[in-house]
């Protein structure tokens, strides 16, 4: 794992001290809320529906066991005993007191964490593949490149006031586990015919009110030009992005309005100029970063034998573990989606346990997934039963990865002041319904995603089944959509028709699932069947 050098630590410590002073001045009345708000947002502190909310950055979703313990301690000391893991691979706390926020940030800084650039029109926390470094299908570990970009983008003076927020994702495999093409810039590390590594740049994706899939802008940027190319992409955006209209200010609109060819032409022109200025960090820095991401000391003789006599355990292994590049190991996914639970929430005790388990079974590493689960990336197959036993006892052993119970849900109207409708209760009811009717397993892979408003924090555009909360004359209402995907076959979901009330939307999801079950051929997943038969049969069943 990456460890702060003295520059990283100094930057973070200085920011904490600065924020402490700003909070003191706000509490003493020397700053008005209008003056203070942008300052607190730069430190991840929002004022939400019920209280201050703090968003903590977890770079590319990677955490040490010790950092997980710190997150647990914070939930205990400054919040109400829990935190919410988000689709941005971050964690949010919902009940923070302003006066205590500087102490909290100081505790985070001691564990090499912060909340900088988790809000505002800057380059946000960079996300990545949650199986990075463990996946058999990657050409390289994508995280050193994400880390390089993190360092480049931290306090980047030119890009601190962009037209709008800016999100990167970096992956290094054909399979996309990070919704890469739904980011402002998605980077795929690839190998060319000569066997050299480079970066494919996809620019102008996003969700929100105008969802777009990022087009490929350059299929191979040599790695010693990675930062320079990113700089060129951002420069063109910073210059021409629509600052006049918040709803058109994301880079996706610029790329769409200019057209991919014209945008690319401008980027290449800028890139040529920048190359002459030698802004790329020395390759030695990338090499230094890479040293932190070496393989852990695997047991080369680890056995792949597994005792499957306990059917619950066998089910969990089949559902929640993924093949590892190292024989005798797997990546294990801890579901934060117990039946009827709140997707992504974890209690202090659960976080402490996950920190312990990471230390004992996964070389002290854990990952936050964009699907709001936690991964232990490097688990010995022979340790799986012991691991599962402890998880199960703590309510963390649900075997539902990528199934209908593994729902992504944003905080919605239960916590979010921008929401139109509640997301969490819908997720809870759907997960309970499918646990009760026993269709969950039969359905197989079915990705359901819920957002409480059009900002799409819950990725509803990219759900095999998506649900969007809308406000219908002051009453919560839910739009159903089908056919989205955020994997390598990225697609945007289409709305089925008129919306449903709270009870109606749960029935509607079951109806859609039944249409699939009746029409499924062979090994087809929900999304495959939908793509084959189209919207009509679903509409027919839903609206008759």
């Amino acid at each position, binding site marked *: 794992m990456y460890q702060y050098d003295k520059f990283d630590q100094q930057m973070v410590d200085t920011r904490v001290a600065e924020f402490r002073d700003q909070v003191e001045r*706000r*509490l003493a*009345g020397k700053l008005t*809320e209008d003056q203070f708000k942008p300052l607190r947002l730069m430190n991840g502190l929002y*004022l939400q*529906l*019920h*209280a*201050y909310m703090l968003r903590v950055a977890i770079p590319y979703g990677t955490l040490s066991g010790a950092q997980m313990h710190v997150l647990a301690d914070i939930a205990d000391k400054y919040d*109400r005993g829990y935190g919410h893991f988000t689709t941005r691979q971050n964690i949010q706390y*919902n*009940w*923070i*007191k*302003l*006066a205590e926020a500087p102490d909290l940030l100081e505790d985070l800084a001691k564990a090499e964490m912060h909340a900088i650039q988790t809000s505002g029109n800057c380059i946000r926390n960079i996300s990545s593949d949650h199986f990075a470094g463990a996946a058999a299908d990657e050409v390289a570990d994508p995280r050193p490149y994400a880390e390089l970009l993190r360092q480049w983008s931290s306090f980047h003076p030119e890009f601190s006031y962009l037209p709008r927020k800016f999100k990167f994702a970096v992956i290094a495999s054909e399979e996309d586990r990070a919704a890469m093409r739904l980011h402002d810039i998605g980077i795929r590390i690839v190998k060319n015919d000569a066997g050299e590594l480079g970066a494919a740049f996809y620019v102008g994706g996003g969700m929100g009110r105008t969802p777009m899939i990022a087009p490929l802008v350059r299929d191979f940027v040599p790695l010693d030009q990675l930062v320079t190319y990113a700089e060129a992409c951002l420069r063109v955006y910073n210059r021409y992005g629509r600052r006049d209209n918040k709803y058109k200010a994301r880079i996706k609109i610029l790329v769409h309005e200019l057209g991919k060819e014209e945008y690319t032409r401008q980027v290449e022109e800028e890139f040529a100029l920048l190359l002459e200025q030698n802004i790329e960090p020395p390759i030695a820095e990338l090499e230094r970063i890479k040293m932190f991401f070496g393989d852990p000391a695997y047991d080369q003789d680890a056995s792949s034998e597994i005792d499957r006599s306990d059917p619950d355990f066998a089910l969990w292994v089949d559902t929640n573990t993924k093949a590892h590049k190292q024989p005798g190991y797997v990546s294990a996914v801890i579901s934060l989606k117990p039946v009827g639970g*709140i997707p992504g929430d974890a209690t202090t005790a659960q976080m402490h346990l996950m920190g312990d388990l990471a230390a004992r079974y996964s070389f002290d590493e854990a990952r936050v997934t964009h699907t709001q689960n936690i991964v232990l990336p490097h688990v010995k197959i022979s340790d799986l039963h012991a691991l599962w036993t402890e998880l199960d006892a703590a309510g963390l052993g649900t075997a539902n990865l990528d199934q209908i119970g593994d729902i992504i849900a944003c905080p919605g*109207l*239960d*916590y979010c*002041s921008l*929401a139109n409708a*509640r997301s*969490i*209760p819908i997720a*809870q009811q759907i997960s309970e319904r499918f646990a009760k009717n026993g269709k969950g397993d039969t359905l197989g892979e079915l990705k359901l995603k819920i957002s409480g408003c059009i900002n799409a924090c819950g990725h509803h555009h990219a759900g095999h089944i998506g649900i969007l909360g809308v406000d219908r004359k*002051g*009453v*919560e209402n839910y739009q159903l959509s089908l056919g989205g995907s955020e994997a390598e076959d990225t697609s945007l979901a289409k709305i089925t028709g008129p919306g449903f009330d709270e009870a109606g939307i749960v029935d509607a999801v079951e109806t859609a699932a039944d249409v699939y079950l009746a029409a499924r051929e062979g090994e087809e997943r929900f999304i495959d069947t939908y793509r084959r038969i189209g919207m009509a049969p679903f509409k027919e069943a839903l609206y008759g």
Partner: protein
Amino acid sequence: MKIITGNDLESGAVTWWNGQGWSLRVEDAADAGDSAEAILAREEAARRVNAGYIIEGEPGSDGHPRPAHVKDRIRGLGPTVRLDLTLKPGDEIAAREVI
């Protein structure tokens, strides 16, 4: 009917104008009528409330003003999915009133 709401600056807790001061309990909310804007301006200037705003109210089942929109009612209650964290922990009836 006009209700004034905001947050306590230091704790962030949701507060309601009760006619004399600020209460944590939405049931205490008073109809501020035409004076709402003047009251809010005065209270913000004195830092007795933070990020205040005015919302529509309607008579609740007990006759007291309550927020007309479900968003503000959830704001008054707390998260409907964590009734243990609301001001009246575990009160299912209070929760049902909200929706």
